[in-house]
């Protein structure tokens, strides 16, 4: 096993910068998820580690060794492709064995390893089948078996679950996590699905336009997003973002004017944000917005979506900003078109500069409440 590191790694395709000075370390045995929308550079980062692309600047390290000019076959990493990349003319057994044939393993050792990998992934009964005779989930497991059979220093996984249906995806991601923990192999996992990232990653690195936005543990990322992009991208639905202007009201209390209504802002945040007149973006998670007469922000209900255990109520403020409210399915449900008042507890507010960067204002500000603290108004 070995750690993987990007040192100011930059990759351009023509004039387009796919990866911009990426600085990131993946610890030995860690499962790090690269998360971001299409075109954010996450797959490029993975391909740099695989050796399928070379960085234009900076360095890629595997196990502390710079591998910029080391050929893909000599990096001792295994990759699971989005398409699985199974050889259609070879049986499952031969597919799994394929990496071993080129690496000088004798026949008995190859058989032993194929049998072990197949057994680990529940493929022992399918070794003679061709890939076209397998379901999507089985193909995915064959691709995983082909990756683990070599016992590489690191696994690279490029959206390996994206071709599976929802139920199978849930099961398989649990299987992958269990397998990774069992093997303890450093894993770099690319996905655009934030649920996948939150449930699988030891840490998550969020990327946008080739730039690393934030890297942290899943809960920390959710609780303290570094900017509005991360706030919006992580969470389903993402954080509500409300453009606001800071004012000092009567008695010296700080308020943010949002669509003609006032929301109380803690003093530390207000000071750090620049004081009176500063343009802000206030963030609030959907589960931290309440609907009721005690609210202070006027809104109109535009969509009510029932998702079984919970309900998402989409509301529109006076300035056209949309706010999603997450409610328990058992709670009283507003009707479409109904005028409501939204309530937000100051402790659950995230404060961002107009540029999108988080306002760092010390304890008590910008922290989402811990579960069970009852921060929802």
């Amino acid at each position, binding site marked *: 096993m070995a750690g993987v590191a990007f040192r100011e790694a930059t990759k351009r395709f023509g004039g387009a910068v796919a990866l911009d000075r990426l600085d990131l370390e993946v610890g030995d045995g860690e499962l790090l998820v690269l998360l971001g929308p299409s075109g954010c550079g996450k797959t490029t980062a993975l391909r740099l580690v695989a050796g399928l692309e070379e960085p234009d600047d900076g360095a890629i390290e595997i196990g502390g060794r710079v591998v910029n000019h080391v050929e893909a*076959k000599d990096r001792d990493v295994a*990759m699971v*492709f989005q398409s699985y990349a199974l050889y259609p003319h070879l049986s499952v057994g031969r597919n799994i064995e394929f*990496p071993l044939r080129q690496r000088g393993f004798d026949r008995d050792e190859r058989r032993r390893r194929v049998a072990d990998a197949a057994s680990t992934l529940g493929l022992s009964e399918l070794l003679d089948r061709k890939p076209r005779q397998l379901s999507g989930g089985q193909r995915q497991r064959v691709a995983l078996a082909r990756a683990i059979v070599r016992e590489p220093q690191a696994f690279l996984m490029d959206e390996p679950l994206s071709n599976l249906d929802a139920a199978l995806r849930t099961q398989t991601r649990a299987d992958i996590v269990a397998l990774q923990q069992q093997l303890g192999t450093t894993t770099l996992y690319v996905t655009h699905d934030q649920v996948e990232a939150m449930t699988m990653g030891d840490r998550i690195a969020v990327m946008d336009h080739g730039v690393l936005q934030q890297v942290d543990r899943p809960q920390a990322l959710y609780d303290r997003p570094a900017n509005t992009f991360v706030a919006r991208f992580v969470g389903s639905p993402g954080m509500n973002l409300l453009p606001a202007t800071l004012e000092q009201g009567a008695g010296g209390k700080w308020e943010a004017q949002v669509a003609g209504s006032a929301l109380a802002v803690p003093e530390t945040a207000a000071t750090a944000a620049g004081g009176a007149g500063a343009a802000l973006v206030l963030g609030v998670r959907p589960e931290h917005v309440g609907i009721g007469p005690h609210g202070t922000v006027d809104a109109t209900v535009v969509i009510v979506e029932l998702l079984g255990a919970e309900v998402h109520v989409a509301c529109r403020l006076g300035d056209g900003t949309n706010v999603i409210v997450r409610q328990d399915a058992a709670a009283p449900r507003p009707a479409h078109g109904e005028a409501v008042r939204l309530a937000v507890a100051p402790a659950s507010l995230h404060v961002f500069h107009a540029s999108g960067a988080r306002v760092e204002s010390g304890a008590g500000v910008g922290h989402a409440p811990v579960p069970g603290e009852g921060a929802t108004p």
Partner: protein
Amino acid sequence: MPSDAPPGRRARRLRLVVRYTLLTLGAVVVLGPLYLTVVNSLLPASALAQRPPPLFPVHPQWHDYAAAWSQGHLDVYLRNSAIQTGIIVAGQLVTSTLAAYAFAFLRFPLRRTLFVVFLATLMIPFEVTIVTNSTTVSDLGWYNTFAGLTVPFLATGFGTFLLRQAFLQIPRDLREAAALDGYGHLRFLVRVAVPLARPSLAALGVFSFLAAWNQYLWPLIVTGSGTNVRTVQIGLKLLEGTQLSHVDVVLAGTVIAVVPLLVLLVVFQKQLVRSLTGGAVK
């Protein structure tokens, strides 16, 4: 007779009748000459002069086949044709596979331009290059040798184009997965690309075989007297000028020369149709 079938069904039936009539006519046009050749090769020479000629050999004459085979040296000519065709088919499969792989998977300067040049060779009829090629073959001392017969045909733009299209169908992920697994280009070609392009390779093999086996002009130019390297098509022509110059013997020789082609077409019919209709339907 008035039909009770509804109009849609009647139209479908009419279309079917028209289609099968046209197909039958086509089959007669294509297979008719072949049938007549076989029939005439089995008739005595006297019967060939009858008008109209018989359409079925009541008393087949097999001795014409024996005469064509032994006295007309068809055994030698067929062997020569087999060697010539074998070398050309193998050569074209190897060179086309390597060139097509390069165009499909490798990145190198002027790749597109070179490919266009390859395609441009398809526009030049072979006859245009005959004088230059025969001079070159003669200068190299290859006159009356298998090298002279085959070397000018060892590479083909058509084969390169056909196989490149097949290789382009192979997902790029497979090449990258193989690269990570330690497979270089040559091993990937042998272990993955060639097995996956097998239908196209078979089709190219059949096309090459047909073209090589049926060559007449080039073997006539680069082979001289004697039978050491002359091919069966030249041998058939020579039958006319010998003491065996009977139409029935020549026809028997023709049937013998056609048999390998028929066997090949029957065996590889599927691959041929698949390669010709590839991409036409999903």
